[in-house]
């Protein structure tokens, strides 16, 4: 217990000083994706549901926040709140449909539903289509702190991330989380104990989509832009990759996975290798699945257990 607390303390200190060492916008991007991956991991890692359309919630949060910030002059915290709620609402609708199917079907249903939304956003007038919503103002937090300053923005994003991260942890270790665990272990038994398992999956889906929306809303503020990228199925694939690579069902896996994937993308987007980005992502998928299923954090934990446990 103490060890864990020390670890958290250490991480927070690093997070606090990081922006003076690394380009802050990069860090903010990382935090947004880490939050997105944490939200996704709540479903995949702790309920065993592979949502292959999670980008739709990231994007929905982003569009709502972007639209409101552009056209109503809301303060950023309210804009983000609205985006989060909107994504959660969409999650409620999609989740209700998706939990009717299991396993691979669940993955296909979520993917198809996300594609439905993608086409909607592509055609709907308020999203700006391919252009996206550009020039979204960051505004002033509570009307006081100007977020156009990258440092101010960074600490705001960090606070949001910590909140999201905490909520995921809390959910996993809550009475609700107990039932989720039971459902993952033996679904028919949970049913026979009188639990309406679809409702539990549904609530988990809503929490996860709202958090994904939170990540999207935040990301829109950081980059001052909401676009189709965030609702595209490639993005859904990316978050799967982050979680898988980092270690699904682990606490820090999504964080590590997001860090690695974002860094790789950053590295590749520069040079000659840009061409290879899909090939490399694909190869990572293959390698992870074949040899590395527990992900970086998972394998590390195994190693520690073997040598010290």
């Amino acid at each position, binding site marked *: 217990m103490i060890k864990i607390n020390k670890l958290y303390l250490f991480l927070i200190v690093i997070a606090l000083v990081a922006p003076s060492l690394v380009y802050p916008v990069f860090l903010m991007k990382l935090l947004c994706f880490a939050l997105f991956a944490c939200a996704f991991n709540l479903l995949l890692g702790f309920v065993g549901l592979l949502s292959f359309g999670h980008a739709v919630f990231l994007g929905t949060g982003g569009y709502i926040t972007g639209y409101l910030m552009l056209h109503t002059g809301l303060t950023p915290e309210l804009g983000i709140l609205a985006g989060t709620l909107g994504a959660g609402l969409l999650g409620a609708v999609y989740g209700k*449909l998706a939990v009717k199917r299991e396993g691979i079907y669940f993955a296909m249903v979520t993917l*198809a539903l996300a594609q439905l939304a993608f086409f909607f956003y592509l055609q709907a007038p308020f999203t700006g289509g391919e252009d996206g919503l550009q020039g979204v103002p960051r505004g002033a937090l509570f009307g006081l702190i100007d977020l156009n300053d990258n440092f101010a923005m960074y600490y705001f994003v960090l606070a949001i991330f910590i909140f999201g991260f905490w909520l995921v942890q809390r959910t996993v270790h809550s009475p609700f989380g107990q039932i989720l665990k039971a459902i993952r272990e033996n679904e028919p038994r949970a049913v026979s104990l009188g639990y309406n398992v679809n409702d539990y999956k549904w609530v988990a889906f809503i929490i996860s989509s709202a958090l994904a929306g939170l990540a999207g809303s935040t990301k829109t503020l950081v980059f001052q832009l909401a676009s189709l990228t965030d609702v595209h*199925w490639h993005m859904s694939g990316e978050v799967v990759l982050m979680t898988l690579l980092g270690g699904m069902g682990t606490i820090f896996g999504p964080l590590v996975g997001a860090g690695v994937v974002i860094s790789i993308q950053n590295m590749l987007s520069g040079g000659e290798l840009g061409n290879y980005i*899909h090939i490399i992502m694909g190869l990572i998928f293959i390698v992870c699945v074949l040899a590395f299923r527990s992900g970086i954090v998972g394998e590390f934990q195994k190693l520690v257990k073997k040598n010290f446990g």
Partner: protein
Amino acid sequence: MKGTVTYTIFASLGDVMATIFGINLFALSGQLLVGLINGSFYALLSLGLAIIFGLLKIINFAQGAMYMLGAFFAWMALNYMGINYWWALLLVPLAVGVLAILMERFLVRPIANEDHLYSLLLTFGVALVLQGLFTHFYGSSGLPYQIPAELKGGTKLPFMYLPNYRAWIIVSSLVVCFSTWWVIEKTKLGAYLRAGTENPQLMQGFGINVPLITTLTFGFGVALAAFAGVLAAPVYSVSPEMGSNILIVVFAIVVIGGMGSIGGAILTGLMMGVVEGLTKFFYPEASTTVIFLFMVIVLLVKPAGLFGKEA
């Protein structure tokens, strides 16, 4: 009354349009036929998925990439080796099937006992790699492929000009789909397949070489996609993106149909093509989403799918 309608239709074979309730019947029939053509591709692809799913219990996310590969191989065969369309139609599915067999043997089988979500992710990775490779080497603008000389031209139907090649697409894919259905539902080999689907280990115990059947089935399911790819090459441009676009739609179709039966996969595929065609006619803006909306409705009223068995 009946007579009058018929009369109207026949009388209008010239350039007078046959209209009922303000709907242009000729245009409608045209769209229906076009929908059927698209449905043929959907049917081939979802049939391939269903067969693979049946025996391996995995969804082959690379099915779209294999379709793309089919089209590319046809192009490469023609341009590098001078192999014409007809040979390609035979050889390319074989070649892609062989690749699939290697993929099954070296990538899919090692994780056969893991959660099937992993194989979904694995095949997703394969799809990304294939798509990336072809984009890298051939760009993304698409490559041209000629309609074979024998099938150039078309037939003037009362309601539309039907290119011969499109007619060929419908006929050939229906023949392939129906033959596949017949083998699986009506023959002893099919019984092995169906039983192997449920309990491969026991089938082994009965003396049936299930790994071989599994591998061949995977190869065959993928070959169907490649076949569709070769069929598609002359009408859609051969491009790395062609597979991923269609695959998600096919996924929705699979959810609608429910993977319950081989016949169901074929029928749903054709049906959704027609539904899409109708939408393009009545309300084109929704044509990209109609199949997904249809899926939503099916999920609401019959979660297991139109042909799915209740869990």
